[in-house]
């Protein structure tokens, strides 16, 4: 009496494991474009998705010096304390994203596209891949 029941449970468990494995194989892993910067100094706290900054897109249009020299953006993810007030005042992103040279701040969803709670980091960077690989996916936004 116990034997067939036990076997069928085993089979059910095996089937369930297979189904879970098939599902897990289909879930996404982080494999962002090299240099994409996730900015989450204030976004999650303010109830917004983090910003994903496509570095490559801007590099095609501007030399490094424009943003990192003239606009004073430091070579450090999380080191600039950019917020919407500064952007609206024409600092940082706001120097171009003013509705003239590039689209303006009311297009929230073009910048705030990150999956919720992503921490601030440079994606595919050496530090992310070799030194702190655990944080790559969806670490909680405890980090400022």
């Amino acid at each position: 009496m116990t034997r067939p029941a036990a076997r069928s449970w085993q089979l059910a468990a095996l089937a369930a494991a297979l189904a879970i494995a098939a599902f897990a194989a289909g879930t996404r892993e982080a494999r962002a474009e090299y240099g994409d910067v996730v900015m989450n100094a204030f976004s999650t706290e303010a109830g917004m998705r983090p910003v994903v900054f496509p570095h490559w897109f801007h590099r095609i249009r501007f030399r490094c010096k424009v943003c990192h020299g003239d606009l004073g953006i430091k070579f450090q993810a999380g080191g600039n304390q950019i917020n919407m007030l500064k952007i609206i005042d024409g600092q940082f992103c706001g120097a171009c994203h003013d509705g003239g040279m590039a689209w303006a701040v009311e297009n929230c969803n073009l910048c705030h596209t990150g999956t919720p709670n992503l921490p601030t980091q440079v994606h595919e960077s050496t530090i992310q891949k070799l030194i702190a690989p655990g944080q790559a996916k969806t670490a909680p936004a405890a980090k400022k």
Partner: protein
Amino acid sequence: MRTKITIRLAAGALAALALPALHAQDGRQTYEQKCAVCHAAGLAGAPRPGNAADWAPRLKAGKAAIYRNALQGTMRGMPPKGGNPDLPDAAVRAAADYMMAGAAIAAKPAARKAVAQAPAAAAAPSATAAATAPVAAKTEPGSGATQANAFNRLLRPPSRRNPPPAEDGIHDPAVDGTLQLQPPLAAFSSMPRSNAGNRVDWVKALAEEKIAPRWERDKPDSAAVVMDLNIVREVKGSMPDVVYPHKQHTEWLDCSNCHPALFVPQKGANQMSMAAILLGQGCGACHGRVAFPVSECRLCHSKKKDGITAGAAAPHGDTPR
């Protein structure tokens, strides 16, 4: 109790075993509901399901490319996901599989017929069709078995490099903005490629004028202040010495970006190690984050130790450590 167990067992087994069948059925359903509008009649050159002539040239580029085109859209008229952004990626792939599957089966007889009927003068094009069709058919069933023993199993295959925002794992595909963003490959396709980072050779792209990044924010015609001076750094160990070119750096950067915060502009004043660079200091401020990473050893360690390249040794200002 017993019936419960059997029901659970049956459900579990169904979920596990019926996946491929479900996949095919889903593909057909998605095709009929969404894709058939254009693809059934081949509107604007859309490949028709099961039509070997339509699919053979596309299959040549590989299934991954077909999936990518289906998901991201093409310049020729395919909208991303056929204009149905809400469709899950898996459904789009399943629909593509459904359309291709017919073509792969139909390809064999069609190709044979073409060869049989071809007169000598028209032999070349039909021969290529015949050559590609069986290959396309062959990749269908065999792909699962060969993948397990493929080369570079742990490396990211080319089809998964430079993924579009909706698939890169950090953009939220549920946000409408994600689907409006430019996929990197669309921008990179005209640029020279490299082996790491974005897989774009940015310096070459600039030199060949494939891109025209502005030097001043609002002045399209402004020119960079370029300084052409190589600095040779002798390194410990067996690695070739490092040649640092100011030229390629000043094409992008201002002096103040690096001096004096990252590098003191003085001979021997800068301690450097690969460990520090890996941690983001010195060269690591950019290399390993946005510029080519340290895996490309020879791009920096480029000067052979014993002055075999005559003439290069004397004029450079050597910087001792």
